[in-house]
């Protein structure tokens, strides 16, 4: 456990790529995604603040100010400009923005709050040094644990509310595909056994594979399986969760090769062994 939490390989470079990926995802989400003028037009009669910020005011037209401030700070933070200032501002304002859009009468549904947690975590990335490497490793381990636990929570909730039958029958995937699926998914509904296979695979993936995220040797395979799982879901049901798995390359695939470069970025400790310049 100590190894997983505090001895991640190459944590600084991975966190740097995660920062860039996360900021790009947020910018894309905000520019073309569902952060629409709906939240400005309907605010006078639909907005109602709730936990955890019951004091948060109706922003009115300042919704745009908040949205474009988040884009601005995401861009700055992603580019690594004044990270100490832009990072916390980005994390805080994005937290407020994501909170704000949940206060419009809709029942909360899991969407993208992992981005908020990861953005907050990225504010704590320390200066690169050997002594701070363990803390950087912990931040990375936190994100990996979040991802693994997310799948496990999804599987556990199915087991609790739907029972084993959820996985064995595949009926929930079948009915949802009939209602909301892609043309390909709807075409596949002619053969319900395909959805039984999908149900069993979902059970294996969500209930057993998450544990393999904690081991160095199996982590990448799990990430590949997860991306495949999401692409499969997207192909059949049209639900991509791209804002989650787009982080996986930075989180899981940048490792040993670049760690050689990282080691070479700590030359001071070996300076004593360097030959002295000729007098």
């Amino acid at each position, binding site marked *: *456990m*100590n190894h997983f*939490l*505090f001895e991640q390989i190459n944590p600084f470079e991975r966190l740097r790529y995660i920062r860039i990926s996360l900021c790009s995802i947020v910018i894309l989400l905000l520019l*073309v*995604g*569902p952060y*629409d*003028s*709906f939240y400005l*037009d*309907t605010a006078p*009669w*639909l907005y109602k603040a*709730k*936990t955890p910020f019951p004091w948060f005011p109706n922003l009115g037209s300042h919704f745009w100010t908040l949205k474009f401030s988040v884009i601005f700070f995401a861009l700055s933070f992603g580019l690594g400009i004044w990270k100490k200032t832009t990072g916390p501002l980005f994390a805080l304002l994005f937290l407020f923005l994501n909170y704000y*859009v*949940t206060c*419009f*009468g*809709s*029942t*909360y*549904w*899991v*969407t993208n*709050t992992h981005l*908020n*947690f990861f953005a907050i975590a990225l504010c704590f990335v320390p200066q690169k040094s050997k*002594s701070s490497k*363990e*803390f950087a490793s*912990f931040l990375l*381990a*936190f994100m990996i*644990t979040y991802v693994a*636990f997310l799948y496990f*929570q*999804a599987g*556990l*909730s*199915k087991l*609790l*509310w*739907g*029972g084993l*039958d*959820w996985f064995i*029958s595949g*009926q*929930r*995937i*079948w*009915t949802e595909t*009939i*209602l*909301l699926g892609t043309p390909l998914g*709807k075409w596949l509904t*002619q053969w319900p056994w395909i959805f039984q296979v999908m149900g069993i695979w979902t059970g294996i993936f969500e209930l057993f594979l998450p544990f393999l995220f904690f081991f160095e040797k199996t982590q990448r395979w799990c990430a590949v399986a997860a991306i495949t799982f999401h692409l499969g879901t997207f192909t059949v049901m049209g639900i991509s969760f*791209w804002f989650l798995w787009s982080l996986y390359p930075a989180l899981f695939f940048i490792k040993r090769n670049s760690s050689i470069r990282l080691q070479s970025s700590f030359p001071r400790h070996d300076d004593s062994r360097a030959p002295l310049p000729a007098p």
Partner: protein
Amino acid sequence: MSRLRKISLSFFLICFLTVQLKLTLFGGFLWPFSSHRLFARMPEMNKQTLQAVVEDANGDIQSVHPGRVIPIEFCRCVGLVRNIFTNGSDFQKEQLQKYLLERLNQKPWWAFDEMYPSVKSPTEAAFVSLKFETHELDFTSYSYSTSLPVKQKQHLYP
């Protein structure tokens, strides 16, 4: 890093996961934490679904997912419609219906990931009415070649 600091960080992580797990096991609302209950229940073979019914100036009627008339993530639209049109005030219901109809005509939107595109009139005529209905669908007699049988329709609003 000191041993105490490592223990404190590990404790923080355990607390964080406990909150998430509590939501999965017992439900509740504690944004930004999440239960990650995704499609967790078994489906009913006679399922109640919410539908938006739009009519254009030429009399063409379409029955679509509420996500086609509300410009936010489709998965949040059903909850929004249900909450407002069953528990909301008359003012909210009236305003929301009026706003959505205006929005469909004046500022349609395109699809992006979990956001469906706005519904379009086949003849590009303006929409003149928007209603919300509950449809009871019968999955037991589903066939790919025919549309899903609707056993019963009920008006939700107006």
